[in-house]
């Protein structure tokens, strides 16, 4: 198991290096001088020139990339131009908020998505099934920013049950988590349904029926565990979707997380901050995929055995 995890980590390293390279090139060929932008009218041409030299901005791109990579490995992502603070500090301070939002949203999406998916599969081709799947499609088709506004309008502005935005306690988390979780609940429920339907066609389900198990027993004791394996691994891959969604959710609900940092970095053209935030998010996605693979092997004894053979 350890060997497997190690190997998976090794495989993701080239992907990570490739991503940092793409990211670095994209952000460093940006037209306009970030230093001039930072200093605005205060800097004379000589001062700007000195700062450029200090930040090594005149070195060749590849040298700068290697330096960036080396620093990033040491936890140094540079200094925010706008806020004049280390990017790493800013991100680490914001991350717990994003993490909390993502975890709550994931919980919401599973609590809505999995039961709906099961219900749909069990009552396949009935009105209930179509209703549930329509409901799921609604979740997938609603833009996050729009459902956020809608919930804000109804629960905060009209009913005054919950705060509109900000982040000062759990009550501030309810609407954002609902909005973000709802957006991926549709994916989870569709996947749960198709996965369960697929499993229900398998031979060992017939065996379970032949033993005298009722439909509920067949599903809970035999079908569900197998059917949920792909769903569980999707949950880890969900990280990418949740992070994209968090950018919008945090922006709307004014949650000081990594997503809002990204949006702010773009509007203030704060390149180091943007670079750090996107890199951080990408690492999270790769970690999520890694967790998915490992989880998959833990849950499925067949894969576990196969891994042992390979290791």
């Amino acid at each position, binding site marked *: 198991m350890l060997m497997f995890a190690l190997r998976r980590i090794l495989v993701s390293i080239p992907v990570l290096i490739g991503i940092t390279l793409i990211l670095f090139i994209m952000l460093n060929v940006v037209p306009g001088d970030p230093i001039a932008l930072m200093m605005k009218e205060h800097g004379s041409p000589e001062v700007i020139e000195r700062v450029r030299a200090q930040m090594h901005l005149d070195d060749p791109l590849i040298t700068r990339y290697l330096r960036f990579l080396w620093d990033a490995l040491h936890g140094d992502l540079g200094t925010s131009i706008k806020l004049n603070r280390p990017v790493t500090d800013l991100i680490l301070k914001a991350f717990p908020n994003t993490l909390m939002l993502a975890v709550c949203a994931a919980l919401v999406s599973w609590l809505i998505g999995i039961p709906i998916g099961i219900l749909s599969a069990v009552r396949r081709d009935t009105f209930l099934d179509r209703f549930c799947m329509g409901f799921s499609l609604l979740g997938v088709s609603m833009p996050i920013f729009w459902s956020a506004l809608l919930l804000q309008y109804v629960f905060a502005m009209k009913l005054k049950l919950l705060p509109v935005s900000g982040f000062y306690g759990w009550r501030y988390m309810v609407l954002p988590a609902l909005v973000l979780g709802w957006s991926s609940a549709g994916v989870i429920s569709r996947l749960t349904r198709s996965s369960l339907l697929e499993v229900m066609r398998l031979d060992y389900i017939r065996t379970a029926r032949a033993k005298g198990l009722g439909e509920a027993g067949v599903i809970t004791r035999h079908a569900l565990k197998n059917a949920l394996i792909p769903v569980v691994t999707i949950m880890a891959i969900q990280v990418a979707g949740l992070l994209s969604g968090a950018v*919008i959710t945090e922006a709307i609900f004014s949650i000081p997380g990594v997503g809002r940092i990204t949006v702010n970095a773009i509007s203030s053209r704060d390149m180091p901050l943007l670079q750090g935030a996107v890199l951080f998010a990408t690492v999270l996605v790769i970690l999520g995929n890694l967790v998915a693979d490992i989880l998959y092997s833990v849950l499925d004894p067949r894969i576990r055995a196969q891994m042992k053979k390979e290791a």
Partner: protein
Amino acid sequence: MTDMSDIAAPEALEEASFLRDTLRTFSRNRMAMIGLIFVVTLVLAAAFAPWISPHDPYRVALDEQLLPASTTYWLGTDNFGRDVLTRILYGARISLVVGIVPSLISLAIGTVLGILSGYLGGRTDFVVMRLADMMIAFPSLLLAMVVMYTLGANLLNIFFALALVGWASVARVVRAQTLALREKEFIEAARANGTSRSRIMFGHIFPNVIPTLIVLFSLSIPEAIMWESSLSFLGVGVQPPEASWGLLVAKGKEYMFQAPAVAIAPGVAILLTVMAFNFIGDGLRDALDPSMKD
């Protein structure tokens, strides 16, 4: 050569009946037909917007700000006194174009790379698939935002950003199909006949991928519409005074309390359009390629 025509005739017949079967299955799918009717209506309405709407989408009338819905302004007016419905109608032009163009680009790139990767294998396959891995590891919205940051916010760059986000998953699907097709007898036969590699890839394998591509296309349009609206909502997409639906929601949200329709209505347009395309996509999938179901 006479026997060739004998073989060709049933094949052509089969193709025609395949098309007929597909159309029949599709037209029997009620939701897909509703989706299709909605999309066709929307396209026509967007194309003929100037003739349909009596209002000018850009005319500022400060004495008519945030009016409620009326017989003149069916959905009321926005903070500049512009007719909300007209703005949505014009916004549909941008949202539809942004849905279709980048999807076509990413489909083209993904198809070519996917077939090359799957058929040639080896180093090509390795490089293409690692590139795809990287693209998929980026959170899509962040990647698109970085592109917009670098290249600047305009329509052309939105196309580029969304194509960059979309091609990788197309390439993966096409590659998988190519791998399966490569082992089929008719490809083996073509190879044995000495057909060139490029001819096999784009003359023999490509036509067999088309049904999948149609499905992928119809499902990537709503996705692109969603991403564009998100980008525009965040201010890094379409810029005013042009108006895509995402931007309309963003501008309208300041006035949620006085005139909720200004923000809500364009969102409904996004929701309905995305759902319609999804219904069409599901219908096409069922009709063209049952193996792709769920």
